């Protein structure tokens, strides 16, 4: 457990905690602009976390990932979403939410606790880069999932998925660190393509249905 005291680890922990907080913030905000902002912040933090690990392991591939994360997740996706959807559809706030904000935050806290209990060191006996960050990553995954569950609007769901993705990414760098670059790159590519297609779909839905809220997607049932 000497690692825990090293400055990289402290920084990494700090970044992870902030990422988690961003996830909570997303969960707790109704305004799309805020939501996107928190996501962008989270992505920046993620990029920082990647950079820390890259520095520690001296891995050029991870450095590249950190930069990509910053550019695409931290900048590209939020900006594109804001400009092409939120602004164009003049969306302000996600009106339809299945659960009250405070309730969902409480559930989120419970999920974080679950992640901590499940991912405690006893259950992960192998060598870890950062013992504390793993449960945080899992908590982010769960919180992202919760976002998707409680948010009605398609854009909110998309952002929820991106948070899940961020959690997985954090998990990847903290749990195993040395994911093969080709895989990481592929994941990135998928992400970008996925976001593009989803954005196209959302705008298509908005055109067709005059609303891109998932609460209006109830035609197919049974």
């Amino acid at each position, binding site marked *: 457990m000497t690692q825990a005291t090293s400055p990289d680890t402290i920084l990494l922990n700090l970044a992870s905690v902030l990422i988690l907080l961003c996830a909570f913030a997303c969960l707790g905000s109704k305004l799309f602009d805020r939501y996107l902002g928190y996501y962008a912040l989270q992505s920046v933090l993620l990029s920082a976390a990647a950079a820390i690990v890259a520095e520690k392991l001296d891995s050029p591939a991870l450095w590249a990932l950190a930069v990509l994360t910053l550019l695409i997740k931290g900048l590209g996706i939020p900006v594109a979403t804001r400009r092409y959807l939120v602004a164009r559809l003049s969306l302000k706030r996600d009106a339809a939410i299945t659960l009250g904000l405070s309730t969902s935050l409480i559930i989120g806290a419970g999920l974080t606790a*679950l992640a901590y*209990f*499940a991912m405690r060191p006893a259950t992960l006996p192998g060598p870890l880069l950062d013992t504390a960050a793993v449960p945080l990553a899992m908590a982010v995954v*769960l919180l992202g*999932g919760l976002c998707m569950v409680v*948010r*009605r609007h398609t854009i909110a769901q998309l952002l929820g998925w991106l948070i899940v993705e961020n959690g997985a990414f954090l998990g990847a760098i903290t749990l195993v660190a040395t994911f093969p670059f080709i895989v990481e790159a592929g994941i990135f590519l998928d992400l970008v393509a996925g976001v593009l297609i989803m954005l196209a779909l959302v705008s298509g839905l908005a055109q067709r249905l005059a609303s891109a809220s*998932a*609460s209006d*997607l109830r035609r197919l049932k049974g």
Partner: protein
Amino acid sequence: MTGVAAILLLCAAVLWLAAASFAFLARTRAGLAACAATSALGGTAAVAGGGIVALHGTEASRTIGAGNVVGAVTLQLSPLAAAFIVLLGLIALAIGLFAPRYHRPGSGSAFYFCVYNVALLASLGVLVAGNVVVFLVAWESMTVFSYLLIMRHHQWRGVMAGGFLFLALGEAGFALIVAAFAILSVKTGTLDLAAMAARSHAVPGAWRSTVFVLALIGFGFKAGLVPLHIWLPEAHPVAPADGSGFLSGLVIKLGVYGIMLFAFQLLAGGPMWWGVLATVIGAVTAVVGVLYAVIEEDFKRLLAFHSVENIGIIVTATGAAMMFRAGHQPALGAYMLLAAIYHTVNHGTYKTLLFLEAGVVEHATGTRDLDRLGGLARLMPRTSVVTLIGTLGIAGLPPLNGFVSEWLIFQGLFQGFRIQPLAGVVLVLAGAALALSGGLAVMAFAHAYGIGFLGIPRSRAAAQARETGQPLAGAAVLAGACVALSLGAPAVLIALGQVARAVTGVQLRPVLLPGKLTIIPAHLNFAAFSPTYLAVFLVGVSAVPLLIYLVGRGARTRTVPVWDGGMLRFRPRMQYTGAAFANPIKVTFGRLYQPEFHVERASDDPAGRSGPVRYDFHVLPLFQRYLYDPVVAAVRSLARFVRPLQSGDVNLYLLYIFLVVVIAYLFYLIQSY
């Protein structure tokens, strides 16, 4: 000899396959005839091949190619199956002769012929299957192609429903059969029927019983045991006549074959209660079947219900055979099995005959309603005579074949005193049930023949019935078979004795009194009976009344109008109706029918004249209402109950996945403690 039989059966298969492949020729009359002739020829080959195997009484099997995990293609010739193969061939022969005149050339008929010949092939497959997988493939193919037979005129009302009932219940039964075979194959570690039979005794008793019950119910669906019989009266009437004949003559018999296969070969030997179960179910089936038959006005539905009755008789006999075997009376066991098979063959002949003739009548008059027929004995004399032979056969009257096998079965039941008393009483009650069903069968066919064929035509359509152009040969062949199965009973008994020996391992010594063509029911001195001489004597002794008649030398016979109590003119509808004929039964067994009567009078004439009266009678569909409907309703309501799961709400859908993930974490958490 086995080789010859195998070649003959192969010929039958090839001929049927050819008939199926070239069925498209049936668009023309000549092609139709050629196709039917090929099919009939195949039937002849099957009769010969099956006959050889039955007489020879030995088993043989051969595996084609190497097997794999799924199974192997093993075919076998077994004497038990051979008896059914003969029946199959006979029916194929008769239908082959019948069909070209019955069907109109056209693409519908072409499709029908293709399906029919494949169904024949599949039935043969069931009977020569030596491997579970072959059996099941052939079995369900038979079901599927029989279903397509029923759907020949799918645009007509009621056909879809009847056919679907057949298919759905066939599938339900099939699932049980699959379960029975799967369990047995897993427990014995083989898919080969012969090996399975050899190893089944090592299977634990509870599993053996499970397998038996599954097989009994599973095959019971196809055989039409009460309460699994409800498809028969729905599916039979809507199929073409030869299709109904095939269904009733053969397909339901293969259900019996399945039960016998399990009871006597695959699970040779079981506790007494297996037999009791089969006997009781059989007896109930016989009575319920005939009770519904006797009040039925639709000729084909009447025949279908009556098939239920006969299956009941056969299964009763089979159950009795099992009881005797369990009660240490192997000879009686073998004897009862023989009787059951005999009755199976008999029923196959006369029931097919009657269905074919029902089709002829329907073609000639356009109706199956007995109360709209009548007078056919005069208008369609040859058809009527052939039908009368079938009627006498099915009613179990001497000197025809139904009588012989029923006699055999009763003789077996009478010997119930030879086993433990409680089981014996079961046989007594079964005997009483069969007696009741026999008596009611006579009534049912007096009804069918008396109302349907005799008297004055009850409708204009019936009055216009003509015989020219109607098929005769097919039913006539079966009529001949009925007579042969009665007069030739001793020969049949020898052959079936071989079958029973091969199946049960008991050589039935006293079957025939030497030199006298007299049948002995397993135990010497119990009874004796000679169907051959009885028939001869019955005919011969009629010289006496003839002599008396001639001696009387009365004045000439005068033809007069029927006496009608002084009415001005006797109208056809003044005749006794079928509904009235069956009325005493409706009253006596009202508990079962729970009938609804509707009597509608045209006017309340103060002078007391009733005017036209409309009379409706509906029987409560007991099994549908209290057995099938609740099951269907339960499944439906379950389906309705889960429907909101797929409400269209994406958030809900995401929640499912989310919850499963959370549960996975919790599960992981719990496990790691």
